[in-house]
C-alpha cells in the first residue's frame, strides 16, 4: 500500500472504490487500484470476474454506480468515452473491432481523429487551410507506427480481409495512433499462436519501454503475464483478491484457488484480503 502512496506523484491512474452492477448482478464491488506512470499493469482473473467491466469503467464505456476514476490526478468518472480518449486513454477491444470495410491506413487515421485540428471548413479549403500540411505530418507519425508494428505490407489492404493476428496488430496500431499516455489492452493475445503471442508481447514491452506508454492489460496467458508485467491485480467475482508483483500474486493462496483452481493445503488462511499488496 505504501508503495502506491509513495508513487502518488508519478501516478497516472487511480481507481477508488468502483462498484458496478447490472440489475442484480454485481460486476464490480469496491475495486480500487493505482497505476504508476510507465508501469505495465496486468489484470487477471477467471471468466466473468469483471476484468473487462473494470476496463470499460476506465475507458468510459460504463459508468460505475459508485467510486471514482482519476486520470493524471483529474476525476474523469463522468467524462464521455470520446473525451477520455482525447485526454490520453486509448484502448483495444476483446473482440476485434476494426472498421472492416476501411483500409488499414484509414483505420489508423481514424485513431488520429482528435489530433487532427482541421475542421470541415479548412478541410474544404484543403490547400489553403494548411490541412494538407497537417495531414502529411500525421501521415509521418502513422508510418512510424506502421513500421513499429510491422504491418507495412498490408497498409493498403482492406482490414476485414486480414488474418486474425494481423488484425489484432492493426487494432493495436489504431489505439497507439491516438498517442495515449495510458493504453488499455483487452486480451491482446487471445486466440493467437505461440509465435504471434511472442511478437505481441514484444510490441507491448516496446510500447511500454520505448514509447513510454503506461499499459493496463487483461490477459489470460499466465506465462506472458508473469514475464512482462510489472504488477498484477487479481479479480474474482468482481472483487479484488490480490495485487502485487507477479510472483507474490501467484503465491497467494486465494489466487491459486480462485484462478488456477488449485486447492492448496495452505488454505488455512482464507480471510478475505482486499488490501493485499
Amino acid at each position: 500500500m505504501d508503495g502506491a502512496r509513495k508513487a502518488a506523484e508519478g501516478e497516472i491512474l487511480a481507481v477508488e472504490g468502483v462498484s458496478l452492477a447490472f440489475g442484480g448482478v454485481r460486476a464490480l464491488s469496491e475495486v480500487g487500484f493505482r497505476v504508476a506512470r510507465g508501469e505495465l499493469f496486468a489484470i487477471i482473473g477467471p471468466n466473468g470476474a469483471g476484468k473487462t467491466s473494470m476496463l470499460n469503467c476506465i475507458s468510459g464505456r460504463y459508468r460505475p454506480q459508485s467510486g471514482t476514476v482519476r486520470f493524471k490526478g483529474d476525476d474523469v468518472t463522468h467524462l464521455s468515452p470520446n473525451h477520455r480518449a482525447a485526454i490520453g486513454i486509448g484502448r483495444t477491444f476483446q473482440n476485434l473491432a476494426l472498421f472492416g470495410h476501411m483500409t488499414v491506413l484509414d483505420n489508423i487515421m481514424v485513431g488520429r481523429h482528435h489530433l487532427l485540428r482541421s475542421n470541415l471548413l479548412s478541410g474544404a479549403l484543403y490547400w489553403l487551410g494548411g490541412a494538407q500540411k497537417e495531414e502529411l505530418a500525421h501521415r509521418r507519425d502513422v508510418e512510424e507506427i506502421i513500421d513499429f508494428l510491422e504491418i507495412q505490407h498490408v497498409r493498403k489492404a482492406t482490414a476485414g480481409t486480414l488474418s486474425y493476428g494481423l488484425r489484432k496488430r492493426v487494432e493495436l496500431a489504431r489505439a497507439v495512433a491516438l498517442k495515449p499516455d495510458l493504453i488499455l489492452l483487452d486480451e491482446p493475445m487471445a486466440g493467437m499462436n505461440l509465435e504471434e503471442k511472442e511478437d505481441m508481447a514484444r510490441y507491448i514491452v516496446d510500447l511500454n519501454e520505448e514509447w513510454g506508454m503506461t499499459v493496463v492489460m487483461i490477459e489470460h496467458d499466465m506465462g506472458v503475464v508473469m514475464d512482462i508485467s510489472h504488477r498484477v491485480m487479481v479479480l474474482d467475482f468482481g472483487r479484488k483478491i490480490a495485487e502485487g508483483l507477479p510472483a507474490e500474486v501467484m503465491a497467494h493462496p486465494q489466487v491459486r484457488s480462485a484462478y488456477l483452481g488449485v486447492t492448496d493445503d495452505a488454505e488455512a488462511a482464507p480471510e478475505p484480503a482486499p488490501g493485499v499488496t
Partner: protein
Amino acid sequence: MDWALLLQLVVNGLIVGALYGVVAMCFVLIYKASQVVNFAQGEFVLIGAWVCWFFLTKYQIPFVWGFLLTLAFMVAFGVLVQIVVLRPMIGEPVISVIMVTIGLSIVFQATMKWAFGVFAQPFPPIFAQESVTVLGLEVRTVYLVSLFVSLGIMGGFAYFFKATRMGLAMRATAFDQQVAQSLGISIRTVFAMAWAISAAVSAVAGVVVGVVNGVSSALSFIGIKVFPAVILGGLDSIVGGVLGGVIIGLLENLAHFVDSQWLHWGNMIEIAPFWVLIVILMIKPYGLFGTRDIERV
C-alpha cells in the same frame, strides 16, 4: 417513334435523376451515420425551397445571397431537429424513430402550407439567359446549372468521406459507435453534422426544382421518389444512392415514353419507380451496393 421526345425525356431523366441522387445521398448519409430512416427527407427539400423563395421575394436580395442564407438556415435547422427531436430517441426501437420522422414530415408539410399557402409560387428569374445551346440541343440554363450543381455535390461528398477528418469519423461512427468513441470521436457531433449536411444539401435540390417548376408542397414528392432510389442502390451506400437516383430518373421518363407511344395507360411516370421498389425488395433486398448484414451465430 418520336426520337425528339425520346431524347428530351432521356435528358430530363438524367437531370431529374441527378437530383434524386443528391437527395438519396442525403438520406443515406443520415441512415449511415445515425441509423435513422428519415421519412422527412422530402420536407427538407420543401423547406429549403420555401425559405430560399422567401428570402428572394420578400427581401429582394440577389440570388447568391439568398441561396447562401438558405444553406446557413438549413444547417441550423438540421442540427436543431437532430438535437431536439432525434437525440432523445437514441436507444429507442427503430419503429418509434420511424414514426417520429413520419410525424415530423406531416408537421413540416402542414407548417409550410400554413406559412406559404397551397399554391405554387414561381421563383423570380435568376439567369439572364433562359436557355443555352449545347451540341445543337436547346437546354434550359437551370437544367444545365442543376446538373453541374449535382455533380459538384457528389464530388464534394466523395471528397468529404475519403479525405477529411470528419468524413472519416462519420464512416467510423457508421461502422461501430462504441469503437469510434474510444478513438476520441464525439458521436453527438457526428450525428448533428450528418443532419446538418443532409438538410442543407437537400435544400439545394429543393431550390433547383423550385426554380424550374415553382415552389409548392408538391416538391416533397422527391422525398418519396428517394425510396425506390435508395432501395435500388442499397440503403447504406452513398454511391448506390446516386446511381439509384439516376436510374430511377431515367426509368420513370422512359416508362413515360413507352406509355405515351404505345401503352396509353397513363401516369407511368409516377408509378414505374415503385414497381422497381417492389421488384428489388423481392429479388435483391440489399440493393446494388448495400451491405448484407452478417449474422454470426
